[in-house]
């Protein structure tokens, strides 16, 4: 049986996309892969699109490492998947897509992805069991679970079964993108740093000290944790929800401007009187700590 809405990742994907017949067929009614139909165009355009996109979010390259992620999206809602795929592509990443659990697991086993985005309820095999099967095989690819169930206990169940993050539907794409990028970053080696450094800002996790240009900056414990999280994910957009989750360990929607006020306080301590501002606001998404240069 044909899988009209699935595209195999990696080599298989490129093979299938190579022939002009494929392009003519356009088996995908919602236009997920239309842009990818011309492989040369798709490939060559991507960095440019990515750069442009990033330029708009933060007027500079968001990912200090500059690496594109390989993301596997396992989602049976074609329309939603189309949007995610497009979004990841525009953000300069390489998305692959599977429409059911079996195919998704097959792809996830056969190729190295940086991050998996897995819908919880899928035909043939549910999202949690895909992750469980992968973990059994020793694959530690970080996985983000998408779910229509937004309950706290659902989140707990999702994280317990090996998921690394959990996002209830419906979600803002910027939230998904930020979380996936943070997940991909986390998987990269060299994570267990004791000292984070961005430009002339230095945070020592062991001695709990923060220095900017050699000057000590006294921070309250929560401010320290906030800065630690921002620096750990330097260059990555982090959303308000993520900050509340990671720094305060609460998952409810932050009220109005609570997080903003914390950030502006931190900003006053870190950036005030400095030539280079390190903490930046990304409208409609969150914050990013990065070196302007």
């Amino acid at each position, binding site marked *: 049986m044909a899988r009209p809405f699935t595209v195999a990742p990696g080599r298989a994907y490129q093979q299938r996309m190579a022939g002009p017949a494929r392009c003519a067929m356009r088996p995908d009614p919602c236009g997920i892969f239309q842009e990818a139909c011309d492989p040369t165009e798709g490939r060559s355009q991507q960095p440019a699109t990515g750069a*442009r*996109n990033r330029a*708009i*979010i933060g007027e500079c390259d968001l990912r200090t490492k500059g690496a594109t992620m390989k993301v596997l999206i396992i989602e049976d809602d074609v329309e939603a998947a189309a*949007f995610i795929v497009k*979004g990841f592509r*525009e953000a300069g990443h390489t998305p692959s897509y599977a429409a059911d659990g079996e195919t998704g697991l097959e792809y996830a086993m056969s190729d190295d992805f940086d991050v998996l985005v897995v819908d919880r309820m899928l035909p043939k095999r549910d999202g949690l069991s895909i992750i469980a099967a992968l973990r059994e095989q020793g694959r530690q690819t970080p996985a983000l679970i998408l779910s229509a169930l*937004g*309950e*706290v*206990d659902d989140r*707990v169940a999702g*994280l317990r079964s090996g998921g690394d993050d959990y996002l209830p*539907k*419906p*979600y*803002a*794409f*910027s939230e998904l993108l930020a979380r996936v990028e943070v997940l991909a970053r986390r998987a990269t080696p060299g994570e267990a740093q004791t000292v984070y450094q961005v430009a002339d800002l230095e945070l020592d996790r062991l001695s709990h000290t923060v220095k900017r240009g050699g000057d000590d900056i006294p921070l*309250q*414990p*929560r401010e320290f*944790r906030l800065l630690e999280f921002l620096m750990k994910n330097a260059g990555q957009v982090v959303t308000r929800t993520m900050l509340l989750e990671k720094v*305060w*360990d*609460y*998952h*409810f*929607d932050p*009220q*109005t*401007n*609570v997080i903003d*006020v*914390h950030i*502006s*306080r931190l900003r006053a301590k870190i950036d005030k009187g400095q030539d280079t501002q390190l903490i930046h606001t990304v*409208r*409609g*998404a969150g914050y990013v700590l990065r070196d302007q240069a």
Partner: protein
Amino acid sequence: MSSATKLKPFRTTAFKLAVAYLVAFGLFAVGLIGYLVFETSSVLVREADRRLTEDARRLGRHYQRGGLNGLFQAIQDSAQRPGNQIYALFDPTGRTLMSDFGTLPSGILDEPGLVRFDYEQQLPDGDIRQSSAIVRVIALVDGYHVLIGIDIGQTNVIRQAIQRAMLISVALLLILAVVGWFYVDKRVLKRIEGISGATARIMDGNLSERIQVMGTGDEFDRLADQLNAMLGRLETLMNGLKEVSDNIAHDLRTPLTRMRNQMEDALRQPPENATDREALENALTEADKLMATFQALLTIARVEAGGRRHTLAEADVAQVLTDVRELYEPVAEDKAIALTYGAPSRPVVASINRELLGLAVANLVDNALKYGAPEEGEVNLSVEDDGSSIRITVADNGPGIPNGDRGRVRERFVRLDKSRTAEGSGLGLALVEAVAVFHDGRLELGDAEPGLKATLILPRGQKPSTEQSPEAGAPSSSNRSPLTGTAAEGAS
């Protein structure tokens, strides 16, 4: 708004009815007895008239036959006969020839027809007793007068008896009325109080409350049945309304998210011009607010649906408050409001849903900061544990909420700001209340004098407070140690 005021016994319908019935029955009894008295005496008079006429005729015949002696003899005979006839005979000069009367009113002989008067009766044993009589004077042809009378002393006795009966019956009526009033008051009023109490609780928001049906099949049971049926219908309608708003929130969330994503997408494209960009960014902010409202609505719906006992876990309530205080401290500081929390020395470990409780306390603090405390005011957080329940209090020194509005503000979308221009969705307290109910507790809104004192009361389950390390209260998903220092720090 709150519970029904106790009925005043003298203002009840039962009392008024009792008084009305008492007056009506009293008047009726007096009328009836009066009529009886009147009728008996008129019957007596008629009967006397008849007998006297007959007697006069008989005496007349004796006089015609036997002259004065015959008459005298007839009177003597008649007096011997049993009965209450009394006689007197007068010669033409008015001298009494014989008389059963001790005294006689003067001028009696000139009276025509029936005359009624009191007299002293000469009893055979020489005694004299007060009595009254109805008499008739008959003038004989040769100037003699015969006075024929009937003693009606007996009827007076009857009348007195009737008067006594009247008094007794009125007294009995009074007693019956009082007893009846007590009965109505105690039994019937109790049921009416039951009904008004139930309606008061229903008005306080507990729509599932019902009026008790006693099963006696009386009119109160019928009334209760009818009211309960009406309440059932009301509840269905209210739930329908709630469902509709929840469904709207649920169904609009997805297209709204899509819209938001489209805007975000548009913002990611190169800027055409600054105004378009700003418009898009503003639209994005508004969409986020709308989504937050829907999210709150759905959270309330989910929390109210309850049935999530398994989400309860042992956690430190005091730590939740520390977290929330710490989260809101910069916001408070920006408004120059002192946000204080006297953290207890020991953790208050209870079976809670930490997320929901955090959300509820955050909402209370958010409310206090937004609408409660004035500039340079204060908001105080506290937690008390008396072993059977935990009381989390958030008090501000702002304008407070008038007593009459304290029930209303818990409803969805109810805002005290009439113009609805102030920031906020009007869902905060509804959410807090839902979280309280989720924990089998309740939300109390009181007066902090001045200001609002919102108290979240969570009853403890079977598990009493035990000695636990602070770490026991920390969330299981987190491996960091709780920040113990923040609670003690003032709003510097």
